[in-house]
């Protein structure tokens, strides 16, 4: 079986030196999930981050756990696994991380748009996604404040949401308090230590830390950590702005977005793309996205982006016109050229594993990522074929 071979190949790389201790670089939600599942599996885990918990892209996320926005393929399989794992996590930590199985509603303005939604949903259903057609006349039963005149929608009951900062913080706390993991914040990784080819730990501004294996969960900065180990992992920032409204009574019940969002997620354009994504939160605020542009790490507020986000949100929910935005922030999605994350052992640097490049889906995909890496690290068969996510899949750049 092809998948089995790939799995064995990946595991072999690690099992040359069996490891009981793991160092995770990055205390965002992906690093937290890696630490949680590895520590739960019995590994001795240390997490380091140059800043605070959830101080990078996690702290700028909306906390989406989505299957609806993914086309069939490796990422959707990962998302479906993650959705199951998040449900399990929610059974224990649901209130702490503000888990809400709210469901996602994708709406189409036109009949051709609706036909496109139905085609996508048919493919998704074959992969295990639950998707229910919502007739135009029924849209307002789901979302009373939706604009009139929409052609219809698709409801995805598996879509959920967590508060991403709390998710990272509580997964790390559970890893520490229940499974003995250690968390060192304010520690900057400056290099890796090696024995021959093999990565044996990291150098930090507070001294060296030895480890049987090192997980690169540095998110948007994952490429820099990889470079310290002499390998190339092309993770680039893709900026997104979010507008946050004043706290409101529950007005918007689901994550609601327009059909073209799926296209934007998968787009390669460097230019500005915006599509309306609107959702309420347990805190009462409504989050309004989404924009995508490749402008490096520039944090300058863009009024062009904000105006488009506001206009598109109002087009979906006219009631928002009289609501105040009280805050905006931007974050940098860790983006790889093929829009897939990098997950698994790096054959070019034995002892180094990657868990980064999840673009805008890191919160959702974190659980599966951590779970799969823990399987790899303990010599178990990973629940999914990791080859689509392998770190050495990118063409080398001619020097």
């Amino acid at each position, binding site marked *: 079986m092809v998948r089995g071979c790939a799995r064995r190949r990946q595991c072999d790389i690690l099992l040359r030196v069996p490891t009981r201790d793991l160092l995770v670089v990055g205390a965002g939600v992906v690093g937290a999930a890696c630490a949680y599942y590895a520590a739960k599996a019995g590994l001795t885990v240390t997490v380091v981050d140059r*800043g605070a918990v959830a101080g990078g892209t996690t*702290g700028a996320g909306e906390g989406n756990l989505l299957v609806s926005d993914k086309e069939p393929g490796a990422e959707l399989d990962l998302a479906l696994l993650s959705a199951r794992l998040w449900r399990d996590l929610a059974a224990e930590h649901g209130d702490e991380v503000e888990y809400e199985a709210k469901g996602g509603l994708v*709406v189409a303005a036109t009949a051709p748009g609706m036909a496109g939604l139905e085609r996508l949903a048919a493919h998704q259903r074959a992969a295990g996604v639950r998707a229910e057609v919502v007739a135009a006349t029924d849209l307002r039963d789901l979302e009373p404040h939706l604009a009139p005149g929409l052609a219809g929608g698709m409801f995805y009951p598996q879509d959920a949401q967590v508060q991403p900062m*709390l998710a990272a*913080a509580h997964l790390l*706390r559970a890893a520490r308090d229940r499974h003995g993991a250690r968390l060192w914040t304010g520690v900057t990784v400056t290099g890796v230590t090696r024995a021959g080819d093999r990565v044996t730990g990291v150098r930090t501004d507070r001294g060296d830390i030895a480890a049987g294996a090192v997980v690169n969960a540095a998110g948007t900065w994952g490429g820099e950590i990889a470079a310290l180990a002499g390998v190339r992992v092309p993770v680039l920032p893709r900026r997104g702005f979010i507008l946050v409204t004043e706290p409101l009574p529950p007005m918007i019940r689901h994550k609601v977005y327009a*059909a073209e969002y799926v296209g934007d997620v998968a787009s390669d354009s460097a230019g500005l793309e915006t599509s309306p994504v609107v959702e309420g939160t347990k*805190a009462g605020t409504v989050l309004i996205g989404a924009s995508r542009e490749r402008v490096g790490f520039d944090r300058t507020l863009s009024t062009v982006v904000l105006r488009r986000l506001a*206009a598109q949100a109002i087009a979906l929910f006219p009631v928002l016109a009289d609501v105040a935005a009280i805050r905006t922030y931007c974050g940098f999605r860790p983006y790889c050229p093929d829009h897939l994350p990098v997950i698994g052992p790096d054959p070019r640097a034995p002892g180094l594993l990657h868990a980064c490049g999840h673009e805008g889906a890191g919160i959702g995909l974190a659980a599966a990522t951590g779970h799969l890496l823990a399987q790899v690290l303990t010599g178990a068969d990973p629940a999914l074929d990791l080859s689509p996510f392998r770190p050495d899949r990118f063409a080398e750049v001619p020097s």
Partner: protein
Amino acid sequence: MTRDLAVIGAGPAGLAAAVTAAATGLRVVLVDAGARPGGQYFRHPPDTLAGPRGAARHGWAEFARLRDELAGHVAAGRITHLAGHAVWHVEAHSEEADARFTLHLGGTGSVAVSSGAVREVRARALVIAAGAHDRPLPFPGWDLPGVLTAGGAQALLKGSLVVAGRRVVVAGTGPFLLPVAAGLASAGARVEGVFEANRPGRFARHGARVLRNAGKLAEGAGYAAVLLRHRVPYRVGHAIVAAHGDDAVESVTVARLDRDWTPVRGGERVIECDAVAVGYGFTPQLEIPVELGCATRVDADGSLVVVVDAAQRTSVPGVYAAGETTGVGGAPLALTEGRLAGQAVAAALGAPPARPSRRLLARRARLRAFAATLHDAYAVRPGWAGWLRPDTLVCRCEEVPYGRLDEAVRELGAIDPRAAKLISRAGMGWCQGRICGYPTACLTARIRKRAPDVADLTGLARRPLAQPVRLGDLAEDPAAGGAEDADGADPGGGGPC
């Protein structure tokens, strides 16, 4: 609208900057959220409201002169005064652009801006004179109705001629407590006491500096005389450590403090009251300079302030700052800095300054030294954290108790105030940390066993939207001359693939 200079804030500093620049021939736009010029210091009721004009108030004559000058420049078309306009963002364009700055103005909440409102202003230079607001410290019960900031009680009196309560307790630190208490007592309230947490007797060792500022002292002596006349007790080394009541404040616990503001055992008593005016200094409004990238520092009073050079220039070309924005120092210093900023802008834009500024430079140096002396005498001491209980709210908007903030920092990896905010939600509500930012930064740093630094304070001072903006106003691009283009506003559009 495009002007040579845009001034943000029509308090003492902004007014002085605007009229000084206009006098050299520059075309100025003065943008202010208030309905009338004067800012917080020269707050006055509208003409419809009978009552004291400013005659009795310190510095009123100078303000009246500035207001007349402003009226003259407005009449002559040199100054456009946009009252009732809040700036929600300032955009900086490339240095080659003729008008480097675009000020985005808007409504301040859920009501659409009126059709006559200006939405966008462009300018070649910018003076930020946004002023400051009260800096309260949390204590159990500080969220009870009837507990006001000292400035809030003052604004009620000065702006609407309403006395905060029948029996009022004034507390906090700093010389500002005196005019507040004197104003309340003169207006008929029974002021149960003024509780100054510091022991400003220490002030005496700065004798020489104090003497050079005899004007300020005389002002203080005047307030003291009013308090004496109304038999208002003034106690140093005391603070309100709790307020009590069900749905409004009914009493407060006042405690004697040691030097670090830790309550002294047995030094507590309960005072009945129906209002409280409390303030521990001021917090400059820094969202615009922080977002523009202006260098900041922690001032002697613990506030984040903008770094300026001798000409009131910030680290960002074309951006000047004056008044409390550069360090809390009171109206006379703000006026002086505003004049200097106006002259510097005029010089930079090629207009000759109206008069030599050596006198102003000397005055600024003297007033800054005096402000530093006051900051030293009326510093916030760390023992206030001991007034808090786990259920005491730190963030009023999001109702975040101290225990949750403590948990975020100790248990959940929030090692800096920004992370503490994201994880505990302190500072995430309506006020966006304007009120709780300083205490949250101090408490987070304290739990981490260090003093708050620039990064700590910036973590809760960064507000890319400087004011709430109605989404409907945001959606309309004034530059486009109408609604958003149809493509951008279409919720559906293309198919998914």
